[in-house]
């Protein structure tokens, strides 16, 4: 559905995207993950024919985004970052306007607007003015707009930014549902988002593509380094000695928590779950253990991990 090869975009002297290549198959939900300024929006804007690439080509549904941009525009539903809408229009009026703009006939537009309003649960706000809607509703209006002409590909730029947790869940659910019938490319800087919705993840950092893999594979790469956090009340030397003696622990870090508690971050050897061992040690020594958690891998961890791998390969 999407073929991007060696895409580079420079603004003035700055390189926003540097030699990115990837493919998206029909029916996939692909997440474009990266911190702010990684070049996600730039890639999506190039794919939606808003900006030209400096070097490289991109094809959507077999059409070049620069030379055949009319064909491309017909086949994509694009929701830009921050989801700009005309605040002075009513919801149904806005969607009808967008549908007509995308070339639907009057009767077809009416029919499709009805369908997407049901799909995005907008039926009860059809007469409301867009500018007075809550952010969650506005986001759904943007999604409905992207869907209204039945595009083959949906390109969504940060669709859950600025929403409250409940709205985020609703929008994610909606994206997941849409994924059954559409190919979707969604950008985000929140890891749980891609974990929940996407089948494949592209990781972008400073304009370069660091990894492109399925969710399972990426997690596997990470889980080789299992981290466990334990909060224990015990004398410090005892703790240090104990962790030093345990062969399965590769690396540990102790920092004082409140009272007599210490926070121990323990990194185990590849593929070993040491939580039960830590508990066993606490029982043997008579320590008080008040927390034992598996360190969750944040987006930061993924970056650190992948960037480190990247550098090791180069040296």
């Amino acid at each position: 559905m999407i073929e991007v090869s060696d895409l580079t975009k420079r603004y003035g002297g700055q390189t926003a995207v540097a030699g990115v290549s990837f493919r998206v198959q029909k029916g996939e939900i692909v997440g474009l993950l990266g911190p702010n300024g990684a070049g996600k929006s730039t890639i999506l804007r190039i794919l939606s024919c808003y900006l030209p690439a400096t070097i490289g080509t991109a094809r959507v549904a077999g059409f070049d985004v620069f030379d055949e941009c009319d064909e491309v525009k017909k086949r994509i539903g694009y929701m830009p970052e921050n989801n700009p809408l005309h605040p002075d229009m009513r919801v149904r009026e806005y969607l009808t306007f967008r549908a007509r703009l995308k070339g639907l006939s009057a009767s077809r537009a009416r029919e499709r607007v009805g369908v997407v309003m049901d799909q995005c649960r907008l039926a009860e706000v059809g007469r409301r003015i867009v500018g007075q809607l809550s952010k969650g509703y506005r986001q759904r209006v943007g999604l409905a707009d992207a869907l209204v002409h039945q595009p083959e590909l949906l390109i969504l730029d940060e669709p859950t930014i600025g929403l409250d947790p409940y709205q985020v869940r609703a929008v994610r659910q909606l994206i997941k549902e849409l994924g059954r019938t559409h190919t979707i490319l969604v950008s985000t800087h929140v890891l749980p988002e891609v974990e929940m919705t996407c089948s494949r993840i592209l990781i972008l950092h400073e304009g370069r593509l660091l990894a492109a893999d399925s969710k399972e594979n990426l997690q596997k790469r990470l889980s080789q380094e299992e981290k466990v956090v334990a909060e224990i009340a015990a004398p410090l030397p005892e703790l240090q000695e104990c962790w030093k003696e345990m062969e399965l622990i590769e690396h540990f870090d102790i920092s004082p928590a409140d009272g007599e508690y210490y926070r121990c971050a323990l990194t185990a050897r590849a593929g070993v779950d040491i939580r039960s061992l830590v508990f066993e040690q606490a029982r043997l020594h008579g320590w008080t253990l008040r927390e034992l958690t598996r360190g969750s891998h944040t987006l930061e961890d993924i970056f650190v991990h992948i960037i480190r791998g990247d550098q090791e390969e180069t040296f």
Partner: protein
Amino acid sequence: MQVYLTLVRRELGGYFASLTGYILIAAVLLLLGLSFVDMLVKLNAEPTEAPLTEQFFVTVYFWFILLLTTPVITMRSFALEKFSGTYETLMTSPVKDVQVVLAKFTGALLFYAITWLPLGLYLVLVRHYSNDPAVLNPISLLTTFLGILLVGSLYISMGCFASSLTRSQVVAVMISFALGLGLFFLSLRSLMAAPGTGWPAGVFQFIAMTEHLEDFARGIVDTRCLVYYVTLSFFFLFLTLRVVESRRWR
């Protein structure tokens, strides 16, 4: 065509959905009303040979309205959409650049035309109460409106161009106001400066907008004026299109 009409409707609707449209109409109504009062006072004071339509153009109100309202009408056309980000949704829809430019121009021109409608009413009103039916003939009324529309299309296209250059409506107003005022004073030169000889005098004669409008008010349609306004409007629309397209090669 469908895309164009949809966009024109949206543009025109935008003026009425926000307060700007009503404020503009109110401002124009006030100025037109003042000019109407002036005209009545003058007609009362002394009898005149000149037709009603011409009476209107010799006042300053026409130029006030033209120079002040056109930048405000056009400031939103591109700048507002760029500022709010809807420009991105617009340009990533299957629309052509030329459709967008023409639709924005048409929408603004239609709104401009709407603000002028009360003038026709005033003129008809005077005719209704005057004993001499020759005071207003339908032909000169039509050509008057044609003149207003032609000058307007030049100023509207200039405003669209200014608006396409920036994402700030204030900057857009400033640019189009400067362009419009500049052109207006250039066109006044043939009246103010001593009649010279050679080509400069000819050029200034050719662009003398005040004289063009007096011609229109007398019911004269000079093809040179037509060519002047139509080509200049097209020129500014062409520049606007180029600015819109520049996104693709910048």
